[in-house]
């Protein structure tokens, strides 16, 4: 059974179309990165998956309709929407008590163990913690819940790089296994690059890119072209061109590796370069680096 399955998922707020017929298939055990500009529909898509908002079209999460079966679904699904949604008045000990009280799959000992690695005090109120510590606390709660699907919406926004790195390392080492699925929506694409198994770009309510990370590595090549071979390189129809280190860097899709290797140094593109190329080529976007 796929973890998430959507067909023709649509959602409009008045005349503003947030999701414009999305088809989605996420198998169990994947770590999907959902990347898109502001207002692309990421949060709306996640809200639909979490049963927080009604929608049109077909959507199944762990075999259930998230809108009508939300209460049942939330035993198997966990989410961290945004940073800092923990109530500011609550004490660390209270939030542990509460989650242990209402969640059948919460392993309190695990949460306590994770918190022991931080400097968070049990008697502190959330409002007394730094932003990084609040995220650590929330992550400890989430990781101690034995959920089948974990949804993260910009989980590291506003955190410094140390916390961001720690966050994903922790998630990967102490939480993830092949029975769990993780969907993470973020802007900060480069840090999740090594974490993901799948990558999806969303723009203006549509999925504009959808690929596994292995496929990304084999399908896309970035070439730092020798200046004298630029014309030849452009003839091969790169999907994107930018300047860097005084050289032209061209991004090719499904190009012959041997052929492009002759044009310059070849390496795998970063997610952010790929993102700029794909989203930049969409109508309505004209970033400066594009031709």
């Amino acid at each position, binding site marked *: 059974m796929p973890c998430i399955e959507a067909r023709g998922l649509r959602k409009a707020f008045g005349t503003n179309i947030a999701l414009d017929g999305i088809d989605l298939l996420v198998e169990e055990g994947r770590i999907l990165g959902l990347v898109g500009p502001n207002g692309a529909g990421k949060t709306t898509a996640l809200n639909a998956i979490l049963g927080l908002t009604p929608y049109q079209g077909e959507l199944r999460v762990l075999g259930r309709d998230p809108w009508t079966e939300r209460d049942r679904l939330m035993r198997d699904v966990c989410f961290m929407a945004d940073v800092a949604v923990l109530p500011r008045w*609550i004490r660390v000990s209270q939030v542990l008590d509460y989650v242990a009280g209402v969640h059948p799959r919460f392993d309190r000992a695990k949460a306590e163990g994770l918190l022991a690695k931080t400097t968070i005090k049990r008697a502190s109120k959330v409002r007394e913690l730094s932003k990084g510590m609040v995220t650590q606390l929330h992550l400890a709660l989430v990781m101690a819940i034995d959920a089948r699907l974990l949804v993260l919406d910009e989980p590291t926004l506003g955190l410094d790089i140390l916390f961001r790195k720690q966050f994903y390392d922790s998630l*990967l080492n102490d939480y993830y296994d092949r029975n769990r699925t993780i969907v993470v929506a973020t802007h900060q694409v480069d840090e999740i690059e090594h974490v993901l198994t799948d990558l999806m770009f969303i723009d203006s309510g549509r999925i504009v890119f959808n690929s596994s990370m292995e496929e990304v590595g084999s399908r896309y090549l970035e070439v730092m072209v020798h200046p004298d071979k630029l014309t030849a390189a452009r003839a091969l129809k790169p999907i994107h061109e930018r300047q860097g280190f005084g050289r032209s860097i061209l991004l090719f899709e499904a190009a012959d590796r041997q052929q492009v290797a002759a044009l310059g140094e070849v390496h795998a593109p970063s997610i952010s370069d790929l993102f700029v190329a794909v989203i930049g080529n969409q109508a309505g976007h004209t970033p400066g680096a594009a031709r």
Partner: protein
Amino acid sequence: MNTQTNAMPDSHVKSQATAPGVIPVTKQIYWALRREFWENRFIYLAPLGVAALFLFGFLIHSMIHPAGGVRGLSTLAPDKQHKAIIEPFDMAAGLVMGAFILVAMFYCVETLQRERRDRSILFWKSLPVSDVTTVLTKASIPFLFLPLISCAIAFVAQFLMLLVSSVMLAGSGFSVATYWEQVSLFQGSLLLLYHVMTVHVLWGAPIYGWLLLVSAWARRAALLWAVLPPLAIGTLEKLLFNTTYFAAFVGRFFTGGPEGSYPPGTMPMDPGTHLTPFRFLGAPGLWLGLAVTAAFLAAAIRMRRHRDPM
């Protein structure tokens, strides 16, 4: 990658061992209530504070004006004694009940809006506690817990007043036993509970239902949304027809219906009060109000389901 493959069988075993039991709804309600009392400590602090303030005033008054207080009782005519004795007790109960109504209204109008305003609703909704459980638990605060807490606080305050007065009465020539008998604390407290439950909870239920609904619906200024529309209707009625039916209609939810739980003109806590619970429960207005309250709560549950955080 090693850690991952090692972790796998482990967690498999564990997830089977801690088979995903279902948390009984009673336990969920218990924790949802704990949450309300953590978050809104004013639920018990405000009535406590009012009671403490009154007690303090009572104590000071007894010490400054011993003759005007209980020590002067023996100089009063017997028919005036009863009134003089129970007056401060009624006042204490009245103040605590006033605090209860204010706190209940404030709580209701705030509670469902605040969790959206501070976005913590996204945390609460990430846990398997349904909207029905959450909203009904919140409704139980004004409908059950706050009245019980307030009555208990009033009882304790009145008991302390009795003790203070008993000490003051020593050597005044007025019998302490008579004093206790006149106050009849236990009977008075039960009558207070009856009064609160009938007039302010059952009959006043639509007020709290309405406030909870507005709280679940309004994006901002929930208090204004709750108060202004009824105020506008009342004003329009007065201007257009020069009548005040609507104002009287709304006012009844605060003071009890026309088929009161007492005959008109009697004091709620007076032991001599003749209760009329069957007449009260038989009033169609009461049941209509409760039906409307149920509809308000259902709408509030639906709102909490649909509304986005702000």
